[in-house]
């Protein structure tokens, strides 16, 4: 399971600021005081607390009534008491009245059950579940009851009143009668309200809070996959089940299942809580984990055994085991934590609240199970557990927040790093592009220099040499012709630099402009059969120059050697190639004296066609000669071409 690292940075309390646990400690002290004052066995003014009753067994009329002390708990009595019991309440002497019709008296039963009814002077005035079928699971003991004593039934002399409370017990449930109060309705009503708030409404609120915390923790666990949240969720949900079963007058479960699930929920709550604390304090402590797993795993069997034997002492023992395991674990963790060094604020907080919860548990154990003095009407554990759940949730929320903050910080830092790398990459790319551009410019410059050297330069040198060598017999016409050639050469070179975008027709048209006067002078007619063909990427500036040179070579041959009268330039294309052909109607390759020159020119043509990626073919035009270039439409660049050619636009 993946979890957050244990050393997730937490916001340290700044110096001078009161740590949170101090406030929580004050709050817990306040809670303890409130619990104590609410559950202190006091009688409100105008009422009397009754701590004794005359108990008799209706099924055994021969047995004389016994005076018993309250609380009188049927589980702790012999088996004869496990059925119906009738408690006769002695009317207290201090409670008297003059006119029964004007008297509003009431009886407050903080805890009675599990089924009961109240009889005043032989008349039933209140009942809960008394007449319900035996198989139904009625649990009246969780609720306080305020029973009005009808004035019409009161005797004129208070001491003549007889008050009976009949109880049906449920084995294993703490059934019987607890101290009750009798007095004026007004004063008991307030007390009843207080008990209602703490016992019923309070439990409902705790139930809802616990459920919410459980679901929230479960969701956090699903999202963050941190074990702590799962333990928290399990503890909270177990607690929720326990609370839900504690506020039902008639649970849906039969009593056996009710007992089992209710007690098991509490056991698991304690077990998961101990695991959680051990995990939170970052101890993989074997003792605590062992105890917790013992409770979780062994609890179901022990409770089943208790249910089977119907002996409440087994559960009493188990409750003691739970309290002892909790106390031992907490003390052990406390000792270990002290050995390891200072606590952080969260750990102190958790330990403090856990101790508070333990104290409430021990108090309940002593008062409810062992009948220590105190008001058993109120279970402190519920509130203690809630405080603990709240604290743990708060701590977990802090951890989640801290981890979120950390993730945010990491994201920020990551975003910064990415932006930096991106900038570096962009810079590198720019540099690369600049150097590519530089390389292309260099390549183009070299090509131009080469062309100028071979073409224009040699023309000018020839002219210069001619002028120098024939200074006296200089023929102006020849010089003009040579300079004109040089100029044409230069124009051809500039033409090749124009943006022709691989348009073969336009390139040939441009060439035609340059060559046509020479052809006309030689008396050769040009048959122009050029049509639009697909653009050829190989015809970039360098490619155009290669093509010009090829055409120059071919036309020079036609003019000088072919004795042609007509030259045809034609373009066409099919799916794979663009074809350019030049045919003349001259003498062809027949004459031996033309062969050598032609072979040399042929080599040049082949080399240039190769650089253009075109196939070259000579054919007999009958009469005359034909040259055909076949340019592939989707030409793959050869490494050589890539090396020297500028990027194709």
């Amino acid at each position, binding site marked *: 399971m993946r979890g957050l690292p244990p050393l997730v940075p937490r916001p340290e309390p700044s110096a001078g600021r009161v740590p949170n646990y101090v406030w929580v400690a004050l709050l817990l002290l306040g809670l303890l005081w409130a619990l104590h004052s609410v559950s202190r066995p006091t009688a409100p003014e105008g009422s009397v607390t009754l701590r004794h009753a005359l108990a008799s067994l209706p099924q055994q009329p021969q047995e004389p009534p016994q005076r018993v002390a309250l609380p009188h708990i049927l589980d702790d009595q012999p088996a004869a008491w496990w059925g119906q019991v009738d408690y006769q309440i002695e009317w207290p002497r201090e409670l008297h009245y003059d006119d029964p019709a004007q008297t509003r008296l009431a009886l407050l039963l903080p805890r009675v059950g599990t089924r009961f009814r109240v009889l005043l002077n032989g008349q039933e005035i209140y009942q809960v579940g008394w007449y319900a079928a035996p198989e139904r699971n009625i649990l009246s003991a969780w609720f306080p009851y305020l029973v009005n004593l009808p004035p019409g039934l009161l005797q004129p002399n208070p001491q003549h009143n007889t008050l009976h409370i009949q109880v049906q017990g449920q084995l294993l449930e703490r059934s019987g009668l607890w101290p009750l109060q009798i007095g004026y309705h007004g004063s008991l009503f307030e007390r009843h309200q207080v008990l209602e708030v703490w016992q019923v409404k309070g439990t409902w609120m705790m139930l809802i809070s616990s459920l919410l915390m459980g679901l929230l923790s479960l969701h956090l666990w699903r999202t963050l996959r941190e074990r702590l949240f799962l333990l928290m969720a399990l503890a909270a949900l177990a607690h929720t089940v326990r609370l839900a079963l504690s506020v039902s007058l008639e649970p849906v479960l039969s009593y056996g299942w009710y007992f089992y699930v209710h007690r098991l929920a509490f056991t698991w709550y304690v077990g998961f809580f101990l695991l959680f604390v051990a995990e939170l304090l970052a101890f993989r402590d074997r003792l605590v984990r062992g105890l917790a797993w013992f409770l979780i795993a062994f609890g179901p069997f022990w409770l089943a055994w208790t249910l089977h034997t119907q002996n409440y002492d087994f559960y009493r023992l188990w409750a003691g085991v739970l309290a002892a395991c909790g106390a031992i674990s907490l003390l052990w963790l406390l000792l270990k934590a002290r050995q390891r060094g200072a606590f952080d604020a969260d750990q102190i907080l958790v330990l403090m609240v856990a101790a508070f919860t333990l104290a409430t548990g021990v108090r309940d154990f002593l008062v409810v199970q062992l009948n220590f003095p105190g008001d058993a009407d109120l279970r402190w554990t519920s509130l203690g557990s809630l405080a603990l759940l709240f604290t743990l949730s708060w701590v977990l929320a802090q951890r989640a927040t801290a981890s979120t903050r950390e993730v945010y910080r990491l994201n920020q830092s990551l975003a910064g790093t990415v932006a930096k790398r991106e900038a570096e990459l962009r810079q590198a790319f720019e540099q690369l592009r600049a150097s590519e551009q530089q390389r292309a410019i260099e390549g183009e410059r070299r090509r131009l220099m080469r062309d100028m050297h071979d073409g224009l330069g040699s023309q000018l040198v020839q002219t210069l040499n001619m002028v120098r060598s024939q200074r006296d017999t200089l023929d102006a016409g020849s010089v003009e012709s040579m300079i004109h050639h040089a100029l044409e050469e230069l124009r051809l070179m500039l033409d090749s630099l124009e943006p022709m975008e691989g348009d073969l027709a*336009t390139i040939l048209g441009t*060439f035609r402009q340059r060559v046509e006067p020479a052809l006309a002078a030689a008396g050769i007619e040009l048959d122009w059969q050029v049509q639009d063909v697909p653009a050829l990427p190989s015809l970039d500036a360098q490619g155009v120059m290669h093509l010009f040179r090829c055409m120059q070579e071919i036309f020079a041959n036609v003019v000088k050697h072919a004795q042609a009268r007509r030259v045809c330039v034609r373009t066409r294309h099919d799916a794979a190639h663009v074809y350019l052909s030049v045919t003349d109607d001259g003498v062809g390759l027949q004459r031996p004296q033309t062969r050598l020159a032609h072979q040399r020119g042929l080599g040049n043509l082949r080399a240039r066609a190769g650089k253009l990626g075109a196939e070259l073919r000579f054919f007999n035009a009958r009469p005359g000669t034909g040259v055909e270039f076949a340019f592939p439409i989707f030409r793959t660049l050869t490494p050589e071409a890539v090396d020297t050619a500028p990027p194709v636009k």
Partner: protein
Amino acid sequence: MAHNRSMPSITRIYLIEDDRTVLHFVQHALALRPDWRLVGHSETFAHARIMAPNSLADVYLVDLGLPDGRGEDMLRLLALTKPEAELLVFTVFGDESRLIHALQSGATGYVLKGCNATELIEAIEQICAGGAPISPLLARLLLKQLRNNAPAQVAENGSAIPALSERETEVLKLVAQGYVNKEIATRLGIGTATVSTHIKNLYRKLAVHTRVQVVRAAQERGLL
């Protein structure tokens, strides 16, 4: 719109060129046509700006590389003040990339500086007769620039760019493929003069943009 006006008996030429040898060449060439006159010559932009618009010349030969100003600006000025005159750009190489700016500034044709006297005379005759020389590459550039423009399309500065007619597009396509006017006429079944007219119209359309702009600027300044 046809520009086949009859040839005037006297063609008056104005040369804006700082190179004296070119002046001599033009004077020498004009010896071939005694009825033509060189009516003016400016060696600088400043001189030409004052003198050229007031000249009665029919044909202006404008060098793009004047020492004190841009030839394109001179073309703009002449396009506005002498709308009926032919403006020939005098250029060494005929490099289209630069030439097209000149044409957009109002030039109606160009002459290569390296040409011989006969070629110069022919170029001037051709343009006066209503035709203008145009290279395949220039035709290609024009096609690219004008072909897809709808009649109502508006340029960045607000003036409308005229669209090409179908016939003009055909002519331009053939020019771009390297055909000469005679071949184009044969292929399209029209007269050579008509081809020249179409080409000349193309030049005008290209410069419309400039003319509108210049007229508007003049109006704003209260000159018109």
